[in-house]
């Protein structure tokens, strides 16, 4: 029964629009489903399951062996999702006799090997109807993409059992599916699953965009918003871990940071590479582009360590020597952080300076200069704010510098996936390599798939359909008549595009249907912006 219940939950989540409705569905499911089924379901919803034998290509191969490859590809292209396509195309009975239970399905998936998967997965699919097959394939390949985040699933868990979301976030980390200790604590009245002697992740405190808000600098402290990645460094029980904002363990990519930390503490900071790009010699941080060379690597060569030396610029101190500081004010934590930093290796750790700004206007003036210093913007932190998980209104703000704008010409469009699978929603745009009236070419400079409203997307989709001059599989080449105003945070050298440039955070800011294509910007204009 329970695989069908899970399938019904998945479909319910697909079709439910409101966040509250989704919370309700998951909470009801968690309350009324026995252990360990509900733990496996929770793991599936939060991408906590991994079945190495089942890959996206496994599903494709299974189908290719049963359905004509051309028909499969046409179907996949239309449906926009491999698992759903496979669930619909699977030549199985409409109401199978012996559907597997949730736990049974998970155990079967876990036992599959690369050799057995083609037979075993097929046998499992034969025992499910189309909705069940969809849920199983989503679960097997990870990434449910049913419109819920891990955070929402955790909130639903908290709602189901009347416990605090912050506690759930904190205890979650370090737990493995099917999270029996979590259910024992929240649902079955057991003790909290906490262990101070392990280097566990603590949920990050995040900032709201400042937008139109004006704050009183008597209440807020300002820091630069450094352009790296936010990290948490944890040392406990003789072990050190480096976590990304999402709680992923990235210790392996940054051995020099891990090796330099041996004090029992939990620190919050920005991971950067040494250089002079951000804030000049004084800022001593390279561009985000430099840091990117180091991200996602399983092994790090000596040359990498020498060419792109990493360090952490510290923002906050959460725990020190077993003492949890998170309920103290930012000001108190800051004092303790300043006292703590000198105990660390200065090559690998430094302190994010507080910006001296007497008034909001003075800060605004300093922020204006951020572009010249290649800094992303400023952060505002309420002096009396405790360190709380997630985004809380009024405590921390980020105030990014204004984006750069450039007029580009739409060159190619590709269909999106998921909800956008019927829309041309990924746009590649270019700038002129010289004078277009003298015959210069357009060269691609970037690709964007957001920034527009739903109405604008419909308009763009219809423009692409009416102005197609060539088709390459899912990509359409347009007649290059439409000007798009593109906003982006910065531009740097890259081999990704023929122009030799790539933008950071490009988005479609405005559709300039009024502007003739030859009046769009040139590559040279973008090159000038590179320094900024």
């Amino acid at each position: 029964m329970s695989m069908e219940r899970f399938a019904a939950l998945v479909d319910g989540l697909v079709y439910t629009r409101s966040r509250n409705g989704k919370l309700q569905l998951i909470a009801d499911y968690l309350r009324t489903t026995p252990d360990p089924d509900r733990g496996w379901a929770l793991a599936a919803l939060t991408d906590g399951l991994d079945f190495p034998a089942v890959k996206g290509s496994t599903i494709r191969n299974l189908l290719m062996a049963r359905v004509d490859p051309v028909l499969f590809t046409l179907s996949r292209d239309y449906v926009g999702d491999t698992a759903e396509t496979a669930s619909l195309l699977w030549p199985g009975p409409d109401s199978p006799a012996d559907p597997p239970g949730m736990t049974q399905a998970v155990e079967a998936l876990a036992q599959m090997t690369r050799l057995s998967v083609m037979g075993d997965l097929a046998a499992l699919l034969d025992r499910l109807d189309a909705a069940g097959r969809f849920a199983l394939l989503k679960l097997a390949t990870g990434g449910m993409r049913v419109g819920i985040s891990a955070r929402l699933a955790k909130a639903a868990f908290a709602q189901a059992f009347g416990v605090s979301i912050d506690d759930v976030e904190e205890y979650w980390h370090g737990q493995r599916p099917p999270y029996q200790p979590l259910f024992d604590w929240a649902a079955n009245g057991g003790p909290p699953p906490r262990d101070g002697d392990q280097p566990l992740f603590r949920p990050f405190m995040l900032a709201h965009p400042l937008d139109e808000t004006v704050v009183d600098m008597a209440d807020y402290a300002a820091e630069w918003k450094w352009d790296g990645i936010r990290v948490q460094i944890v040392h406990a029980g003789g072990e050190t871990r480096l976590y990304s904002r999402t709680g992923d363990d990235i210790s392996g990519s940054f051995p020099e940071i891990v090796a330099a930390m041996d004090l029992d503490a939990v620190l919050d900071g920005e991971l950067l590479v040494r250089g002079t790009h951000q804030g000049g010699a004084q800022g001593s941080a390279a561009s985000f582009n430099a840091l990117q060379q180091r991200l996602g690597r399983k092994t790090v060569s000596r040359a990498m360590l020498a060419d792109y030396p990493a360090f952490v610029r510290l923002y906050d101190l959460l725990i020190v020597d077993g003492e949890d500081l998170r309920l103290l004010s930012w000001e108190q934590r800051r004092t303790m952080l300043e006292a703590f930093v000198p105990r660390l290796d200065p090559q690998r750790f430094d302190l994010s300076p507080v910006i001296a700004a007497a008034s909001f206007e003075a800060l605004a003036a300093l922020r204006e200069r951020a572009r010249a210093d290649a800094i992303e913007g400023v952060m505002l932190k309420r002096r009396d704010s405790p360190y709380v998980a997630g985004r809380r209104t009024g405590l921390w703000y980020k105030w990014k510098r204004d984006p750069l704008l450039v007029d580009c010409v739409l060159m190619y469009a590709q269909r999106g996936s998921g909800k956008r699978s019927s829309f041309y929603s990924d746009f590649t745009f270019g700038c002129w390599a010289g004078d277009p009236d003298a015959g210069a070419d357009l060269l691609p400079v970037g690709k964007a798939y957001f920034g527009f409203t739903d109405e604008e997307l419909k308009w763009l989709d219809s423009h692409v359909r009416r102005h197609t001059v060539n088709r390459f599989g899912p990509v359409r080449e347009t007649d290059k008549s439409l000007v798009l105003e593109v906003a982006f945070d910065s531009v740097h050298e890259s081999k990704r595009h023929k122009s030799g440039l790539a933008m950071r955070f490009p988005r479609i800011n405005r559709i300039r249907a009024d502007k003739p294509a030859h009046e769009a910007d040139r590559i040279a204009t973008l090159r000038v912006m590179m320094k900024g």
Partner: protein
Amino acid sequence: MGNIGRMEPGGPGCPAPPMLELSQRDPILKGMARTSFWMRAEAHGLYVAPADCWIDPSRPVDTALVTHGHADHARGGHARTIATPETLAIMKLRYGVTDGAIPAGYGESLRLPGDVQATFLPAGHVLGSAQILLEHAGERVVVTGDYKRRPDPTCLPFVATACDIFVTEATFALPVFRHPPIEQEIAKLLTVRALHPDRCVLVGAYALGKAQRVIAELRRAGYGEPIWLHGALERMCALYEELGVALGPLRLVADAGRADLAGQIVLCPPGALNDRWSRRLPDPITAMASGWMRVRQRARQRNVELPLIISDHADWDELTATIAEVAPRETWITHGREDALLRWCELHQRQARALALVGYEDEGEDD
């Protein structure tokens, strides 16, 4: 063209003609793999050259043969329109067309100029829908228009007819499209209604055909409560009743208070589902009756909470089984996902080609 002769009288409900064996016809044609020379696909419709007439043209012409009343097939402005009496009644309701209307009952053959004979046969798509069998120079061409093979209480069932060239639709021509039995979908609708006595279920259904079929199937399932209608569905439902399709008690949402609608089923055109109009309803559960609902993201794009896979088009199995059953010398594929149906024909060693007709819904959501 002045001389449209009536060959044999007939009317709605007359029995379908027997399948003709190829051998009964002109023996010279047997086994010849030639493409019809007298009928061709132009961008805005199928053109029957000797008779100088068009089938479902997308722009005004002199003489149009119209398969059924949906807007992408039946347009106003033709000098002469030949269609079933039901389709003509629907066109009259929609466009006010009366001049030049020439009724052709099911099974009745009309002689067109240029020695072309046209026979309208039930297509099972919506009330009045027809396939058009054209005969000329010993060759038979069947143009299906839109069709389905499932039973439908609001119209006559599709009649499979032997022919040389079979011109088929391909709206749901992908193997992912397999429509479940309609009883299952109606049961789903009734279950959700029963679970939420304080809310209403708002079903998006195309004004011609789908809405009346959903109503008739609800009645067949024993649902006797009044069914509430968006104003845009009123006249078509009334016409169906006039033409002999019983729909049971119908009411207008405009005449209801919010409280009247709690626990009720409300029908509206798909376009009104997420419209301001629906704000007057008590916390509606948004449903949609369409073959596209088979694909989750299509339902999500329309913000549909309760997808009902109900289609008036042939699904993949029906399309392919029909081609196999009719076994034409050549299959021509009009609008829809023609690539996949072409591929199926290729895999089954059947001659086929896709016609590039414009004006039919490219990825229309209203089936």
